[in-house]
């Protein structure tokens, strides 16, 4: 570049406060993470859900759901994460296990979250709950940001082409997590099944 351009750039840069320049230069990753509303951290007992207001969608892209906020207004709810809508274990075992468990009605809401788009989640909900029982809702996390914020994502690129949600079952009371049950291999059907989480049916 010309000497003049270089001189102008140098002057501009030198006008920034020294401290912020050093911070930006030394910790670029931290500077990026600072723009996230909620840094990713494995969700644990006592935590609230990620307070994201425009990530989860229900039925259509324009219909955003702030699940953390809804959870605070509820007595008890169940949050189920699945790797893939319409996949065998998700469709045949995980979700139906909760739909059919006698203790599920003690909860105000069952929310199913998957890294799929809202059209797919809506169609899947119609398959698993054709009667439209209002206590179970199928929410889409297409960007994966809600799932990542709880550190519940895994790299499913070889099968799915993107990161997906681990299979988990989380119980929440008055907006705070009371139990976290995540499959150790991400996709199995053991600790997160209804019989394990809610007791024998």
């Amino acid at each position, binding site marked *: 570049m010309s000497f003049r351009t270089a001189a102008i750039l140098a002057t501009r840069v030198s006008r920034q406060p020294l401290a912020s320049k050093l911070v930006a230069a030394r910790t670029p990753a931290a500077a990026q993470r600072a723009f996230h509303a909620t840094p990713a951290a494995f969700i644990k007992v006592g935590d609230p859900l990620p307070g994201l207001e425009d990530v989860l969608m229900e039925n259509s892209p324009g219909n955003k759901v702030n699940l953390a906020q809804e959870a605070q207004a509820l007595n008890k709810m169940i949050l189920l994460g699945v790797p893939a809508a*319409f996949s065998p274990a998700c469709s045949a075992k995980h979700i139906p296990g909760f739909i059919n468990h006698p203790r599920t009605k003690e909860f105000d809401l069952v929310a199913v979250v998957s890294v*799929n*788009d809202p059209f797919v989640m809506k169609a899947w909900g119609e398959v698993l709950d054709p009667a439209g029982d209002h206590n179970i809702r199928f929410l889409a996390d297409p960007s994966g940001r809600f799932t990542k914020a709880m550190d519940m994502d895994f790299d499913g690129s070889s099968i799915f082409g993107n990161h997906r949600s681990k299979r988990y079952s989380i119980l929440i009371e008055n907006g705070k997590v009371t139990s976290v049950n995540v499959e150790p291999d991400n996709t199995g059907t053991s600790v997160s099944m209804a019989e394990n989480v809610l007791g024998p049916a």
Partner: protein
Amino acid sequence: MPGLKAGDSFPEGVKFTYVAPTGQLDLTTCGLPIKYDASEEFKNKKVVIVAVPGAFTPTCQEQHVTSYLANLDNLKAKGVDQVVFIASNDHFVMAAWGKANGVKDDSILFMSDTGLAFSKSIGWTKGDRTLRYAIVVDHGKVVYADTDDVPKSIGKSGAEAVLSKL
């Protein structure tokens, strides 16, 4: 490379993933995924590939798939051996979408363009979805390829459009 056009050879190494239809329409069960070697399969067939931005989305569902379902006999009469729908959705979703449309055999196969590999390779993507397009491959040679750039339109990639080019 902006898409394919008539006269091109269908690229080598194109693979999709799908779940083979099992003759039943239960959407809560699903077989295991298989890799479909498109480049190999298309060498000895006449095939229509239809790409849609999203399974279960309005236009794709109400117009695009239905146009092909309604015209399967007409397509067969013009020598088409196979119709393959692809999208960026995963193979589980594609399999369910096929069943949701009442397809329980291989009259139309529903496959995933996993990772958008093929659509990216020909530059026919928008964000992390495919464009809406149709490609006719006759024994390894592309005889028709076009995209629908007008939202909600299937004027270039619907069954009628493809039939008129066969």
